[in-house]
């Protein structure tokens, strides 16, 4: 354990477990959701949370900010929200001598953890204001580029059932999210635990586990995890299997998919796989990591065609079929 890298790896795993523990003190159940959020954070990506109201999405983000001791802001997206309301604006400020000058008033995006609540209720113009921030970790206002503090982590939420008066996110913006996570409804024991935990005298609160610079170091460490060629090949073939025009496409994709996952999907898959491997104390990415992460990493990158929409096909079904076909091809190649 005297090796600094081995020490860093061990610390990575310990920190992940600690973050997960702190989140679990507040959030009841949702173990996979918490794991995925932590992976996305340490992979430097952003998360789109999809779930009905009242499932603890906002609480999750707030608790995460508490556990990481990061600046947290919440933006409630509404149709009249303007880009400047997010990014900030230059205000005329009068100093003590009476001189007036423009002073930049940063918007809520200048935080480290941003909750974009009901992001699909804002207009596309406002939604796109987040694009540069999410991709470049910087915003440009009045010709001046301003960097955001690291780590910068956006969690956007959207309600899948109230679609009236909403503006669905365009594909370009969807592609910038590392994961699209579905927040499941809690089962009966979890509901009991929620009731007990939130209606008592004391509110559960998360304690600080790690600071922002440590998160940045963990992000850097995760990128060093080696990836074997066949694992990388699996990720690439999985992406190609979702493209209906590709020779490697599976039958379900040919039938129900209009556009397959982008190369950014393969990047997200491998990067998230590295974090997952390290969080489990492993020093290499396994195919199993990719299989576990394929649904959250790719489901929002597939665009169904009319037949798929009409048949009620979910992108998850296509991805499961693609993985099953890849496994079958692998077995055939091994035996044949």
């Amino acid at each position, binding site marked *: 354990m005297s090796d600094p890298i081995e020490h860093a790896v061990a610390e990575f795993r310990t920190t992940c477990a600690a973050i997960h523990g702190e989140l679990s003190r507040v959030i009841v159940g949702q173990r996979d959701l918490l794991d995925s959020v932590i992976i996305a954070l340490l992979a430097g990506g952003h998360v789109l949370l999809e779930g009905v109201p009242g499932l603890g999405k906002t609480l999750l983000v707030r608790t995460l900010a508490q556990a990481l001791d990061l600046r947290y802001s919440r933006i409630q997206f509404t149709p009249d929200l303007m880009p400047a309301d997010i990014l900030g604006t230059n205000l005329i400020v009068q100093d003590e001598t009476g001189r007036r000058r423009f002073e930049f008033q940063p918007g809520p995006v200048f935080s480290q953890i941003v909750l974009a609540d009901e992001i699909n209720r804002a207009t596309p113009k406002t939604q796109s204001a987040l694009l540069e921030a999410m991709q470049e970790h910087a915003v440009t206002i009045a010709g001046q580029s301003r960097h955001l503090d690291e780590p910068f982590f956006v969690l956007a939420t959207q309600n899948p059932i109230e679609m009236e008066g909403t503006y669905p996110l365009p594909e370009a913006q969807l592609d910038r999210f590392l994961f699209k996570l579905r927040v499941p409804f809690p089962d009966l024991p979890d509901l009991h635990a929620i009731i007990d935990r939130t209606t008592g005298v004391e509110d559960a609160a998360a304690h600080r586990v790690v600071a922002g610079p440590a998160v940045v170091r963990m992000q850097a460490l995760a990128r060093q995890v*080696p990836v074997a060629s*066949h694992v990388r090949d699996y990720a690439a073939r999985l992406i190609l299997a979702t493209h209906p025009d590709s020779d490697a496409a599976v039958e379900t994709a040919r039938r129900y998919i209009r556009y397959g996952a982008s190369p950014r999907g393969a990047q997200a898959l491998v990067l998230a796989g590295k974090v997952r491997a390290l969080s489990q104390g492993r*020093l*290499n990415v*396994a195919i*199993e990591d990719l299989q576990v992460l394929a649904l959250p990493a790719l489901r929002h990158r597939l665009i169904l065609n009319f037949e798929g929409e009409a048949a009620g096909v979910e992108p998850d079904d296509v991805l499961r079929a693609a993985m099953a076909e890849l496994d079958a091809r692998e077995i055939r190649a*091994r035996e044949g």
Partner: protein
Amino acid sequence: MNEEARGVHEVLARVSFRLAVGIVLGRTVRAAAAASVLALIWALATVAVPIPPPPPRAGAALLLVLLASFPVLVWLWRPSRLAAARAVDGRLGLADRLSTAVELLAQPEAPRGLARVQIVDALRAAWRFSPAAAAPVRFPRETWAFLAACAGLALWAHFLAGWSVPGWPAARTAGVIHREGQSLVTLGQRLESQGQARGLPETRRAAGLLQDLGHRLQDPRTSRSAALAMLGGAGRQLRSAQEAVRRRLGAAAPAGNKGNAVAEAPSAGTSPNDADRLEGALRELQSVTQQLREEGTHETPAHLAFRLRGVVESLDRMRVPPASRDVVSAARRALEEGRLSAATSALGDAAQDLRGMERMLGDAQGVGEAGRLVQRSADQIAAGGPLGNGLRSGERELSGAAPPQSAPGPNPPTASGARETAPPPGPNQGSLPGQGAGRPLGAATPRLGEHGVEERLSGIPGEGPAITRDLLAPGRGGTSRLPAVRPPADVAHANDRAIAREDLPPAYVTIIRRYFEALGEPR
């Protein structure tokens, strides 16, 4: 790091070897299982259709080839180190640790940072497993199919080989084989009796061969290929015997006729006319000799010399040794000159020579007949059953150029006249001269005042043209006490309708109607 890496490589090499053994074992057993199942199906099909059984030598050869090629295939199909590492990862749940480490070790630059730690982690995992656990060599599931098929083949060989389902083509072919065996036994018995009666050694040997062959063909488990092989062997033996007889005949024949004798013998042996003529000549010689030995003969020497002239002419037409003919000629001259004792002695010598010739001709005839029957049986068996047309090349060679025949039914068509063999012996078999089982008959009793005249009938014995003629005549007058009257009109009408209802040729209808009308006419 290098030593540990070498250790991992050694472990992976052993894993690779075990994986290759497993792959080759699996494929070999699957191939053997498929082959054995096919052989079992083939063997079981022999009880239904007349096909040759699966050759056991081919199966043994295939097994030997698979065993001999095993090490070569293991070497050829040995997976790479990376593939072995991936297999170990998958089987031991190492989550691609080893395969990643093998790739990192294969890179030209030395691994650093997290890659180096990953290799160390993989090495720790590698030292924890044994190659046997990572790549266990197991027989595939198809082994049971292979063993079951082998057991089925063994059971088939012991209990079902040669057995056939009644009513199926194989049973019909077995029936043909059995029937041919019976006919061979019957002919063998007949030839045996002939050989004993006439002292024909080659014929008796051929008879024994035919009877033994017939008994073996009557074994219900004799397959068609085995029957054809047995018939082929018997045919070769008979041809060899026929050749020997032909050579002896050729040696005995006059110099000018040797070529003809050799040329004619293979096809038909000797002609039955030759044997008959020879027998007639022998009988004539014995008669003349007896006349000479008896006191008070009824015939004059000149008359006897005239009879000997006829014998000499008959011998000229046959291919007998010239010495025998010369002896008969000398006897004739002695008779003409009145030297009766010299003539008697010469005739005795000539008769002895001709008896030897007669035995050779009889052997040739008997062996030839046996050979023809064996060939006919081979043809029948080769063409027997609905699949008889699908003969293999070897079988077709054995069966000669015989055209394929349909399956023999309850009344199988007889062969052509040239190939037809003699009918089986009846209860009075052996009553003809030279064919009986008892003491040979002596010379025919001469009839007073009659001289034998040899008549030659030309043509082929057989049925003549068939001629039919309508015969309309009144029946024989009876003793009826009732006068014949015309039948009533309704009876005649009913009669006509009954005739019309029957499915008869129109010409017959007219004949039948006229017959009934003739019955009703008053006489």
